[in-house]
């Protein structure tokens, strides 16, 4: 061996040692992710079995009782399927209909506030609900919509008779959407506000010389320049259509309003976990995940087509 080759070899050995060190560093995290993220993924197998508690997810001794898509058929044909699908889509679309444009409008509004300190105050105040825990928000909302609550006091001004709104199935979508929008609109506006703040002020200057007023500046400069941010958020929201905020719904709903409030997420919890139908519940969860993922891909594809912009 000549000198060059020896040098090359020792360099390779050094790099190998270095990389072993780096992988050693990552090992605990990689193992953790394997156990707590990949093992549950593999656990999805029970959706295709008649799993009984205590069995292993997969055994080759013949104990595993494979049933194919039985649980999927059972779910799709069950009387709850239509109701769950309807509720999930209704609540998500309502949330999309309001939760999507309100942060944009709010960001545009805040951007136009002429007084600096006041602008800051408005923004800080709008974040507040984001920091209050869901449990407390739900507790507040439940007390507001009760018979003696704030909502009835306000409505009585308009001559509406006091009633307990929390047990009215018809009122649930409104209560849910309002709560969700109230909790998240200020936080949702952050991204838009920061992309607005990175717009070159010379653009505004130039259009003003051309005689554009404030409204025209907003429509022709601000909005087109935050289009990409809007597109990303739209894709993400569309992907979440079957993932209605079940944490909030679990806190707000009760048996009286299942008719309009029960969604896939809450159904998985009740049927799968509380009643112990593990395989069936896992299948319902898998079903919603696959549809969600397809929707994200679809929305992203569409966005790429229409605006040359997407997540991937």
């Amino acid at each position: 061996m000549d000198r060059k080759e020896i040098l090359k070899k020792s360099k390779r050995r050094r790099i190998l040692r270095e990389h072993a060190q780096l992988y050693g560093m990552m090992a605990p995290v990689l193992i953790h992710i394997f156990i707590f993220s990949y093992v549950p993924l593999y656990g999805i197998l029970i959706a295709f079995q008649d799993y009984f508690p205590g069995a292993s997810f997969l055994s080759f001794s013949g104990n595993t009782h494979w049933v194919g898509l039985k649980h999927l058929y059972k779910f799709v044909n069950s009387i709850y399927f239509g109701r769950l699908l309807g509720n999930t889509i209704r609540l998500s679309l309502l949330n999309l209909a309001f939760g999507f444009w309100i942060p944009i409008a709010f960001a545009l509004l805040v951007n136009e506030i002429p007084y600096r300190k006041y602008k800051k105050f408005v923004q800080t105040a709008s974040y507040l609900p984001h920091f209050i825990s869901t449990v407390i928000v739900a507790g507040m909302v439940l007390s507001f919509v009760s018979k003696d609550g704030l909502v009835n006091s306000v409505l009585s001004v308009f001559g509406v008779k006091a009633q307990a709104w929390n047990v009215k199935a018809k009122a649930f979508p409104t209560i849910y959407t309002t709560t969700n929008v109230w909790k998240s609109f200020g936080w949702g506006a952050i991204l838009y506000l920061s992309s607005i703040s990175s717009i070159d002020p010379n653009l505004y200057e130039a259009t003003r010389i051309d005689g554009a007023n404030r409204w025209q500046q907003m429509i022709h400069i601000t909005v087109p320049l935050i289009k990409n941010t809007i597109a990303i958020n739209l894709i993400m929201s569309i992907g979440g259509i079957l993932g209605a905020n079940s944490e909030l719904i679990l806190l707000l709903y009760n048996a009286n309003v299942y008719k309009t409030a029960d969604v896939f997420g809450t159904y998985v919890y009740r049927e799968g976990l509380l009643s112990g139908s593990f395989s069936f519940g896992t299948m319902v969860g898998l079903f919603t995940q696959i549809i969600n993922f397809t929707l994200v891909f679809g929305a992203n594809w569409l966005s790429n087509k229409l605006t040359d912009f997407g997540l991937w």
Partner: protein
Amino acid sequence: MNGQMGNAALRHRNRIRNGSRVADAIICCVSAVLCFITLYPMYYILVLSLSSPQAAATMKVYFVPDGLYLDSYAMLVKNSQIWRAYGNTLIYVSSELVLRLVSCLLMAYPLTVKGLRGRKFVVIYLLIPMYFGGGMIPNYLLITKLGMYNTMWALIIPGAISIWHIILMRTYLTSLPDSLRESAFIDGANHFQVLAYIYTPVVKPIIAVISIYTIVGVWNSWFSSMIYQTNTKIQPLQMYLRRVLVDMEVDISSVKSGMTMDEIAAAVKQNQLAHQIRYSMIIFTTLPVLFTYPFFQKHFVKGVMLGSLKE
């Protein structure tokens, strides 16, 4: 950053010359209404918690408390359950904080080393769980099988790592100059030393972002506890609040037949206090967050920005 501020100030000045006074007035009024909508519910709860128990029970005070009654707060402070729940939450928050920060550093640093073999695979390995999860039931079965069901570990161990935070950290570390590391290598340091002595001190801003996200997130979480813990002694604060505020498990029907008038009066008062204690509890457990978030908001905003960077 400075340049941006300058630009903003410039635009600001232009605006005042630009817009009409009427438009300004309308904008300010609309945003004032929005502020009222976001702040009033919390203020209303505060007013109820300070009013007389009778007024609080009927919820008919709106802007100024009818006096200053602190009985419900006194009751709250004497409640041992709430202190235990507070203590549990502190345990969860502090352990998650330490574990997540350490894991973020250990995982993100190697991913910034150029030429690391298999780096692409590791990144994909990290990204897959962000899009696909096993779901509630496989996770539940896993926790049960690991013997963590109904222990504090059921919350601590699975939450010890947050892939999203790792990616935030990696994005930040990638923005640091390579020369930082190179110079330490010339002095004979190894990767562990570089991470511990060179990188950790300079990543304080991102550590602040991740810490605040973790603290607020863990402080407000309750769902995993509901699934994995049935023992109320180890449940965090939010679970206790859920029992009191949402499930209304506090017994308020204490009026029984065969009571004397005095006893009934006392029972009714007790009843009203039990109602009011809910409002005091909301205030009492939200105050720490309310007082601190305005000071931390710049870090939050930074986190949102970093998280939105396209990979």
